Structure formats: C-alpha cells, structure tokens
C-alpha cells in the first residue's frame, strides 16, 4: 500500500516535472479532413489553405523555428483518420490537429488527443457532444455546432410567426439530433411540430417525402440533413411548388459553397444559421478576398473558423511561452478571440468557442450583385444566446 503510494507520487512528480521545463520545440500543426468525399468543398483543401494563411499571418515562426503544416485526407473513414492521427501524434510530433470533418472522425480524434494531451481543434464536426459528454481538456470546438444551428434558426423563425414545423430528417444520428434540438426549441417558443419523415442518407429523390411535408400543411419545413441531401431536397421542393404554395424551407446545416452549387434560383428565400459570412464587414471582406484569390472561391464558416482557431492557438502558445497543454489552454481561454471571425468571442471551459452567429436569408437572383453575393444577414445572434449553456452539456471536466 505504502509502496504503491510512493510509486504513485514518484510518478506524479515525474509527470509534473516533465512539462515544468518549458517545451519550446518547433510547433507542428496537422489539418485532417475530407479532401475527396462529400465534404471536400466545404472543408478539404480550403481548410488547409486557411491554416497556411494563419501560419503566414502569425509570422511563420515560433520559438525560433518555422511552424510546420501537414495535411491528409481521411475520406470520412474513422479508421483511416485514426491511423493518421496516431501516426502524427506519436511519430511526427504533431501538436494539434485541426478541422476534423465527420462526427465519427471528430469523436475518435478527440479521444486520441485527450489520451496524449495533444490539441484537437474542431472546426467542422457538427456534433455538440464534442463539448458535452465527449469533451476534452485539450479539445476546442470553434465554428458552430448542431445546438447553435437548431437554436438560431428555430428561435428566430417561430418568433416571426412561423410556428408550425415539419421535418425532413436524414436517418442517422446527426439528422436525429438536429431534428430533436430544433423541435425542442420550436416547442419552447410556443410553436408546434406537426411531424417528421425520415429519409435514408444520400437520397436522390425527395418527391415522396416532400409530398408528405406538403400534406402536413405546416408553415415551415425544416431540413435536418446535410450536403447533397439538402441540395436535392431544396431543388425538388421548388420543383414541386412547395415554396410557391406558401411553405418555407429552413436548412439546418448549409454552407455557402452549397448555395453556390445549387444556385440562387433554387435556394432563394431559404433561411439558415451560419457562423460566418464573408460580406459582413470590412475585416471579413478583406480576409475572404485574400482567400478567394488563393482558392478561387469564398470561404465557408469551416475554413474561416480553421484560420481563426489556428491563429488563436499560435498566439496562445507564444503567450504561454511553452507548448505545455495546460498553460496553452489557460492562455487560449484568457485571451479574447479578436479576429474577423471571433469578433471578441471567448473560449469556454468545456472547449466551446462562444461567438456571434448569424441568421441569414438567401437572396433572390435579382438582388444578388454577382457570384458569392448570396446572403442577407437578418439577425446577429449573440454568442451567449446561440450556444448551449455550459451546465446543460454535461462536460465532466468543468468544475462547478
């Protein structure tokens, strides 16, 4: 017993002794995301470029050595992502992995990073579990999450009088949680959920489901799905005259690249919540134009978020003067996120970066002045209202 205690305290000493010597080895950042599959346009190489810009804007060097950047395509496969992430953390001395599309990947890398006291910077995983039951002392969740999307859209629309809802839900955990969160908010605001229909993932034809939505006579149709499913549903809702007969669509997760792909003709009047829009003020425009020059399209909230998160991380490492996780996390929380994206946002103890979200409406083709002029910001949602209160998340690392 006593021996065990001695051993344990010796071990503890050893462990605490290690990092107390400031770790000033070169900083290495990895961007791990989908570069060839469904999410390649909204994160993919665009996020890699954003990370590169963040490193350049920071000055390219830290602790007297150049900051390294590596990137890889995980094809939305958790096992492949896990191999690469482990290799990066264990062998290649990567300190932080950013982006992390697809929730299975995000959750897996969150766990790997937590075990190794490395940083997981989530800018595209949507699941709010990342700051809830799957939170980590070294994981940060930057751009948005399912709660904020559901909350922002439902609250504003019900307040506007759109109080009866019907959901088209992609039949998997992500869709279910979007439907549940949005439905709860609708009812909390005094609205009514008339029903929902579940469609398989990667569905092509939505006519059957749209007819059921039409028959429900709800005022709003909530699209609790993503990427090509949402795009197909939007196109076909227009084709079947749902919009012209008075129903409105709310996409619960949609990116500006999606709007670009589907076209304003089909997407007009759509309401959605986003964490970033390039044409919001001087600073966002300036950065986005730079991004556009390098990538040939305007950034999504994921790409802008990746820039912001990495820049903030680098600043925190510099301010802490070490890569020791606890010190860096303290700095990250203490410093405001004062760039075009964060707009004075702050990092919460559970890893959530709290910043303003924007409720936007997609412009009509006539109102748009050109490519990428797609959104009209109809409401700025203050960060503290947009995100889930920390006590409701159930993150076990938060001290009460």
């Amino acid at each position: 017993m006593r021996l065990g205690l001695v051993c344990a305290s010796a071990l503890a000493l050893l462990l605490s002794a290690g990092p107390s010597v400031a770790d000033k080895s070169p900083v290495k950042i990895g961007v791990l995301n989908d570069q060839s599959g469904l999410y390649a346009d909204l994160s993919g190489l665009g996020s890699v470029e954003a990370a590169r810009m963040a490193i350049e804007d920071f000055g390219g060097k830290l602790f007297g050595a150049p900051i390294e950047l590596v990137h890889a395509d995980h094809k939305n496969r958790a096992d492949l992502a896990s191999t690469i992430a482990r290799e990066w953390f264990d062998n290649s001395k990567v300190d932080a992995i950013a982006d992390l599309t697809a929730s299975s990947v995000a959750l897996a890398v969150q766990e790997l990073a937590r075990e190794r006291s490395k940083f997981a910077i989530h800018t595209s995983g949507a699941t709010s579990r990342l700051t809830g039951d799957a939170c980590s002392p070294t994981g940060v969740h930057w751009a948005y999450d399912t709660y904020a999307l559901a909350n922002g859209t439902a609250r504003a629309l019900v307040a506007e009088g759109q109080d009866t809802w019907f959901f088209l839900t992609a039949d998997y955990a992500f869709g279910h949680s979007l439907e549940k969160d949005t439905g709860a908010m609708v009812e909390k605001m005094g609205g009514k959920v008339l029903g929902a229909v579940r469609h398989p993932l990667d569905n092509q034809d939505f006519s059957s489901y749209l007819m059921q939505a039409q028959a429900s006579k709800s005022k709003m149709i909530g699209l609790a799905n993503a990427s090509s499913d949402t795009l197909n549903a939007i196109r076909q809702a227009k084709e079947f005259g749902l919009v012209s007969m008075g129903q409105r669509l709310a996409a619960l997760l949609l990116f500006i690249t999606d709007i670009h792909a589907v076209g304003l003709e089909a997407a007009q009047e759509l309401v959605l919540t986003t964490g970033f829009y390039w044409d919001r003020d001087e600073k966002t425009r300036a950065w986005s134009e730079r991004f556009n020059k390098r990538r040939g399209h305007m950034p999504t909230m994921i790409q802008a978020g990746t820039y912001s998160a990495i820049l903030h991380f680098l600043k925190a490492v510099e301010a802490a003067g070490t890569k020791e996780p606890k010190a860096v996390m303290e700095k990250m929380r203490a410093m405001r996120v004062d760039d075009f994206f964060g707009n004075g946002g702050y990092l919460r103890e559970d890893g959530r970066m709290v910043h303003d979200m924007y409720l936007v409406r997609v412009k009509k083709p006539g109102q748009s002045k050109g490519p990428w002029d797609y959104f009209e910001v109809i409401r700025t949602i203050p960060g503290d209202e947009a995100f889930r209160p920390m006590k409701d998340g159930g993150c076990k690392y938060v001290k009460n």
Partner: protein
Amino acid sequence: MLFELLGVPPQALFAQLLIGLVNGSFYAALSLGLAVIFGMLNIINFAHGALYMAGAFVAWMLLHHFGIPFWASLVLSPLIVAVFGMALERVLLSRLYHLDHIYGLLATFGLVLLIEGTFRQLYGVSGRGYPTPEVLKGGWNLGFMFLPNYRAFVLVAALAVCFGAWFFIERTRIGSYLRAGTENARLLQAFGVNVPRMMTLTFGLGVALAAFTGVLAAPIYQVHPLMGFNIIIIVFAVVVVGGMGSILGAIVTGLALGVAEGFTRVFYPEASATVIFVIMAVVLLIRPQGLFGRR
C-alpha cells in the same frame, strides 16, 4: 376500406404510384442499358453509374461553356459519352471477353474510380445545378398531387426511349443480329457479320442510354460526381431481379421497383433504400434466373 386500414388516404397512394413510376422510369432506362451490355458483351458494367453521371455533366458543360440548350444536349451528350464508351470498349473491355465475368466487373469497377475521381478533381464534390428548361417549368395540379411538368416529361421520354430500344432490338434486322450474337457469337461471325464491331456498337448503345438518363436527371438532381455512385447498386438489383440480359425484364422490373420503393416511402420510409435489396434476395432465392430470365 383497405386504405383506411393502412392509415393512408388513397390520394396519397395515387401520388406515390405516379412518383414511383417516374423514378422507376429512371431505373428502367438505366437497367435497360446495363442489360443490353450484359446480354451482348457478357460484361457487368459497374461503370454504368459513372457514365450516367458523365452524361449529366456533359450536358452541364455544353450549357455552361457553349450555351447549348437542354434539348440539343439530350441528343449531343449521349453521343459524346457513347463515343467515349466505345473507345473504352475497344481499348480495354474487348480484351476481357474470353475471361470470367468477374474480370469485367472488376475492370469496370476500376473505371468507376478513375472517372469519378477525375470529375471530382475538376469540379469538386458539391457539383453544379442544371436549370429546368423554360417550357417545362411549372406543373399541373391533379387534385391529389402537384405534378411538375418536367417529371411528366421524364416519364414519357424515358419510356419512349425504353420501348424504342426494345423495338429496335426485338423487331429490326440489326436487332436480330444482336440477339443472335448473345446466343452464339461465333456462328454469327461465320455468317459474315462483323461481331467485334457489333459489340462496340452495342456498348455504345448501352452507354448512350445511361448518358441519356443522366441528361434527364440533370434538372432534377444536383449534378455532382457522386450521383451515379449509389444508383448503380440499385440498378444492379433491378437487372438481377428482371433477369440478366432480359430487355423487357429490365424495363418492367425498373418500373415495378420504382413503385415498390415509392410505397415503402409512405409506410416505412426508413427502409426505402433497402426494400429493393430485400426483393432481390427473395427473387433470387425463389427464381434464380430472375423474373424474366430464361433457363
């Protein structure tokens, strides 16, 4: 009475029946092409979905770069893709005819990776939207449902092409060669017919059907590199249920499975992606040659 029992109003069922037929006509046109190729070339064309996608993309490119409208694309795009397909057949597939079916399946699987990868590299994954042709915008209110004009057009066009192809194969001279070729290619060669050239043309025909369906699909679905990725598996199931190589089987089964899928979407929407495979498994166990297959 029955409808009340099922808890679904009859109008909704009519609507689903119609929608099922529209989707079924897509399946029919695609599986027809697949069946023709299998019948003549003995190759399971895994790349059929990728060529369907290519058809839609070529239509988009024609519109975007050259301003060629939908109606012209309906002819041009299948032609372009068919020429590409025939080149593929000459260069690659013709070397595999003497081998087991498995190799044809595997080679075309490789082609899928190549074709889809290339489009992905060029256009990204979110793809592009293709506008509905002006004349076909709007729709009719049938009382029990709103039928978009374009969907009605798709149903008519796809069926017309299917039955045109069926007529061509079953009732014309060249068609009779084709059928003879599936029975005994060597004998046909002995009669002085250029069998290799016929095979190339058959592959071209099958591919053109896929591309034609792709052009039809462009205004409805988002045109993107992965659009043929999942549909190919469904179309396989259709061809297997109908009977490999059976032309009529492919058309009828395509329509029937479209309707079956439509009804599943009302009663148990979660299963709509799987119902086709359940039907396929049942049919294969009871009637392995397929509903319309011989032997």
